Structures are given as C-alpha cells and as structure tokens.
C-alpha cells in the first residue's frame, strides 16, 4: 500500500495554484470597495474587516477546507463538492458584505466587489470546471449541471440576495431596458447566425463540389474575418445608408446606415467563414466509399447529399456553428457603438460615465450567454459524435 499512500500524499498541482492564488487574493487584494457614489473611487476593504468575527471565521474555515481538498484529494466528486462550497461561500460573503456596508435607506453609496472577490471566484470556478472535466460527464449531465447552476443563480438574483451590490444597483435603475437589451442581444446573435447558415451551407457544399472555387471563397472570407469589427461597421454605414435613401422599401424594413441593419450584416459576414470552412472540412472527411455505395444503390443526388454527406458532416458543421454563435454573442456587444442595441449599450454607457458597475451589467450577462451557448452546442456535437462515430 506504500504506493497508495504516496499517491494520496502527492500535492495536486492545480490545487496548489488555486490555493496560492486564492490565499494571495484574500491577503493582499480588496474583497470589496466601498464607494461614496457610483463614479468616485472608494476604500478597499478586506473580507476579514467587512464581515463580523463569527461570519469571517466560518468563511475562512470553509475556504481552508476547500483549499485542503484542492491540495490533497484526488476524488473528482469531492473536489467538485468542495469547489461548489467555495463558490457559495464567496457569493454569500459578498452578499453579506453588501448588506452590512450599505447604510439603511442610502441609495448613493456603492458596495462594489473588489479584485480580491473576482480572483477568489475565478479560483474556485477553475477548481469546479477542472473537477467537472475529471468527472467526464455525459453531454446530458453537463446540460443539466448548467441548468441547475443557472437556476440557482437566477433564484438568488430574484430573491434579492445581491441587491445591495453595485452591479445590482445599476440593474435596479435599468431593469426595464435590461430585458429589452438582452432580447436584442440574443436576436442579433441568432439572427445573423441563421442568415449565415442559410448562405454558408450551400456555399460550403458548392466549394466542396467545385474545388476551383474553394481557394477564392475561403480567401475572401478570411480577409473579411481580419477586418476589425468597428472598421466593418464603418465600412457598411455608407452603402447601407445609400440603399435606405435610394430604396424606400429598404428604409421601411429598417435598413439604414446605423442601427441593427449594419450590425446584422457585419455579424453575418463574420459568421460565414467558420460555417463555410467547417462545411467543406466536414464533407471532405466523408468516406468516398460511402458516397460511391450510396450512388451505386440508387440514391438520388439529393438523397446522397442529405442522407449521407451532410449527415456525416453534421458534427463538424455544428462545431463551426458553435464557434460562430459564441463569437457573435461577444461581437454583438460592439454593435451598440452604431446603435445596434444589445448588452453593449451598458458597456459603452458605463465606459462613457466611468461607471464600471454599468460596464459589468453589460459584460457579465454577455459572458454568461456565451458560456451557456458553448456548453449547449458542445453537448449537442458530442451527442452526435457518440451516436455516429
């Protein structure tokens, strides 16, 4: 059993990193920042200074337990449980800090999560994702975990747990616009994706069938991909504006130089390359013998394309769609610059007002949306690959 003991005593490298980072954050970085109002810089406070003694001790003890598990335990389930405990403790600590530091009835003072909080959250989050990776959950289990996590977060938000934190203060002010901008954000990302798939799929099939086209099409799309988003919005303004001026119907449909139209067009253009390239790559991977057999057995060209070629290429095509969706959710943020709406509205307003809390109100949901989309589509791709090797 000597080897078993030796294995148990070995220190987990990721655990060591997580522990070191977490400890440094606790010791030297501010857990919360207390600001007199939403713009002025504030005083940094450590976790121990903010919480009452008993709560601080409980909090530190729990985090030490988490660190111990991170360092010494190899069981992935235990590691995941510990990491989740860490997330809950850090979240509870920040919520409590918000409630304690906000004077009753005062709506001007802001309690903002400090860098220490964010670093701690990333550390326990890293430990949780690492534990999930080690557990190798099936796709359905990963989706379930995402749903549970989202439900827990939404419940806490609805319950008002974090209402005294600065970001939620910004939310309270912007609640009506927030729901609208989230819808707009999702609509811009999904709409441009749908348009891109409708065009890119046939284009990819064509590039596969006619190899001479491939270099030119992929080269052009590559060049588009290298144009910075802001530059592309600028480039599109003039032609779309001219179109709206010349064709009244276009203007009635909402096409103009600024707003959602150039945003959707730009996102559409960015979406083409990943979908076309993955369609070509997926079709290229299809066994020529399978296609030959399909034709030889009397399938029509359409049946060969849909029943064999696209079916077999689908996981690769979906991988392209996943790339596009995650990329679009991020890029839509920039669309706010030209009046396209979306969560970027809060980001750019926040930058303009040097109100970092407002920036976060736009940025955090964007990251959450992109992360959820990635998990969902990854699960879908993996389910297909499991079924059809």
């Amino acid at each position, binding site marked *: 059993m000597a080897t078993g003991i030796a294995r148990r005593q070995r220190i987990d490298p990721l655990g060591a990193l997580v522990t070191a980072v977490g400890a440094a954050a606790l010791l030297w970085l501010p857990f919360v920042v207390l600001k007199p109002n939403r713009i002025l810089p504030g005083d940094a406070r450590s976790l121990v200074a903010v919480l009452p003694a008993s709560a601080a001790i409980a909090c530190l003890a729990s985090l030490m337990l988490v660190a111990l598990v991170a360092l010494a335990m190899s069981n992935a389930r235990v590691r995941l449980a510990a990491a989740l405990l860490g997330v809950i403790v850090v979240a509870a600590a920040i919520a409590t800090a918000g409630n304690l530091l906000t004077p009753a009835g005062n709506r001007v003072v802001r309690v903002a999560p400090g860098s220490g909080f964010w670093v701690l959250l990333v550390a326990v989050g890293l430990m949780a994702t690492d534990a999930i990776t080690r557990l190798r959950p099936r796709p359905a289990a990963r989706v379930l975990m995402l749903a549970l996590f989202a439900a827990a977060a939404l419940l806490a938000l609805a319950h008002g747990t974090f209402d005294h934190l600065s970001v939620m203060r910004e939310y309270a002010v912007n609640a009506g616009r927030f729901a609208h901008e989230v819808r707009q954000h999702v609509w811009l990302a999904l709409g441009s994706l749908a348009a891109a798939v409708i065009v890119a799929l046939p284009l990819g099939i064509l590039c596969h069938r006619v190899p001479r086209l491939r270099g030119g099409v992929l080269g052009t799309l590559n060049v588009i991909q290298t144009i910075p988003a802001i530059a592309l919005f600028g480039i599109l303004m003039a032609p779309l504006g001219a179109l709206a001026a010349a064709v009244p119907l276009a203007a009635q449909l909402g096409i103009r130089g600024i707003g959602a139209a150039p945003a959707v067009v730009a996102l559409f253009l960015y979406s083409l390359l990943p979908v076309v390239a993955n369609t070509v790559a997926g079709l290229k991977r299809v066994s020529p*013998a399978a296609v030959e057999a399909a034709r030889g057995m009397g399938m029509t060209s359409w049946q060969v394309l849909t029943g064999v070629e696209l079916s077999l290429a689908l996981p690769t095509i979906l991988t392209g769609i996943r790339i596009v969706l995650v990329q679009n959710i991020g890029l839509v943020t920039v669309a706010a610059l030209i009046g396209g709406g979306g969560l970027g509205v809060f980001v750019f307003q926040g930058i303009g007002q040097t109100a970092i809390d407002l920036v976060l109100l736009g940025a955090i949901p964007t990251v959450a949306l992109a992360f959820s989309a990635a998990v969902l589509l990854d699960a879908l791709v993996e389910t297909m690959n499991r079924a059809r090797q």
Partner: protein
Amino acid sequence: MITLEQLSKRYGTTTVVDQVSMAIERNSITVIVGTSGSGKSTLLRMINRLVEPSSGRVLIDGNDTAREPAHLLRRRIGYAIQGHGLFPHRTVAENIGTVPRLLGWDQGRVRARVDELLTVFQLDPGEFAGKFPHQLSGGQQQRVGVARALAAEPAVLLMDEPFGALDPIIRAKAQDDLLDLQRRFATTIVLVTHDMDEAFRLGSRVAVMSQGRVLQYDRPAVLLTRPADPFVSRMTGSADRAMKLLSLTTAGEVAVPGASSGPTVAASASLRDALSELVWRGAESAAVIDANGMPCGRLTVAAILAHGRPD
C-alpha cells in the same frame, strides 16, 4: 442476360474502355480481370450507369438500360465495392435496409429481409442488427456490405474488388460464401478483380482486359489451354498452369466407379488438392466420398495427371 454492345468510354482523348461487346450469362459468376488502369472498373460501372457510356449500349434481358432514370436502374442492381462503403452513421440493420426503404417496402418486410440476410451471412440478428459498422471486424463489414447489396433481391449483382481489403484466410472464406450465395439466390454476378486466382476460383466465365479492350472472354480452362494473346498467358501464368488447370476440376467429376484403399478425398475437392493429398500420402489412388461421407468412386494419380494437360 446482360449484353454489352460496342461499349466505349472516353475522357477527352483518352479511351478508357474501347468497343467492348460481351454477353453475360444469367445465373452465373462472370469475372472481369485486369491490371489497374485496364478499364475493368469503368466497364462494370457502365452497367449500372455510375459511368455513362460515351457510345454503345447495355441491355439487361433485352431492355436498354439508358431508357430508365439511372437511380431507378441502380435500385434493381446490387452493388458491392472494396472497403464495403457502409454508412458509418447507420446501424447494420439500417445499412442493409437501404435499398428496400428506397423502394418503399413497409417496415415489417424490411426487418424480415434484414434478419433473413444476417442469418444467411452467419451474423446473429439479435447481436448485430443494432451495431454500428465500426464495431464489426473487417470480414463482418464485408459480409454486411454484400448483404446490403442483395437486400432488395436484385437479379444482378455487381462487385468491384469486393474482397480486396480482406486478409487471405478471410478472403478464401468469403469467396466460398459467394459461390454458395450465387447458387442459393440464383443471382447473375459480375465481379471485377485484379487477382487471376480469384477469377479462376469464382468465374464460370472470365474476361481478361487490358488497355480498355477485352482480350479474351471464355471459360477459365480455355484461357489456360488456348490463350488468345501473349498478355493472357502472362496473366494466367505459365509456370503453374498445369496446377491451375487441375484446380478447375473437382474430384467428383473425374472419379470412376470402384473402391480404393488409399486416403479419402471429398468429391467437392479440386484435383489439385486431391493430387497434393496423394503425393503427401505416397498413394496411387484415393477413395472419393460425397458430402454425406459415403464412398462414391475412386481417383487415380494417372487420371488426375491426364486432366492437367491441354487436350
């Protein structure tokens, strides 16, 4: 009966198949043999119009195949290829049921046919129907490929190097199975190979192709004893042609009434194997036994040797 009339295929200035005319007998295995680039696969693929002829006609039972849409023609003709070409995303049962479903058979009939074919190919339906191709061995994949080609009970089966990817032992078994299958379903089989031994073993008639032309099309024994062309004799090989000739006749065909105290030889064994057994045992004659193990005659070395010469 399949009739090829003046069939040619040209790509630009290159002629791949040049004016081939052949009559392919019903209920038999016809083998087209040739080196790579001889045009043999192109010739085969013109029968089910995977390749459209540049000129000439293909008639099946007197009907010009060009008269019906190619995909409908192909549903009536089985097609099996090297490397099996199974659909990796479909189960064994779905693969085999491909053509019956294209033809609109109802589910029950498709399932019954799939089970029947799996049983014929010595694959337990309960175990194999739900498996995916990658879960099968090479030999099993090949059998499923042939089963799929036969699923809609085609009168004609085209096979393009069907055993090319198999190792020698499994290949010999697959060849025996094909001979059984041909008798069982009375299918007209046209098979393409580059392997002359395989051609002799399977073909009741063999066409030797080179540079797009059929040099000789006849029974294997005739190819050996009266090659029409130096290329044909090079393909058939001259060093062991006597042994090849012996391998074309079975012990049962040569046995004469009488008993022998020598070793026993199955009536279905080739004269080549019978001779080998007699040489090994140092005997002058063998007792020939039928499939039930009953003696049915005797076979002498002299009688065997007489069949190893051109007559």
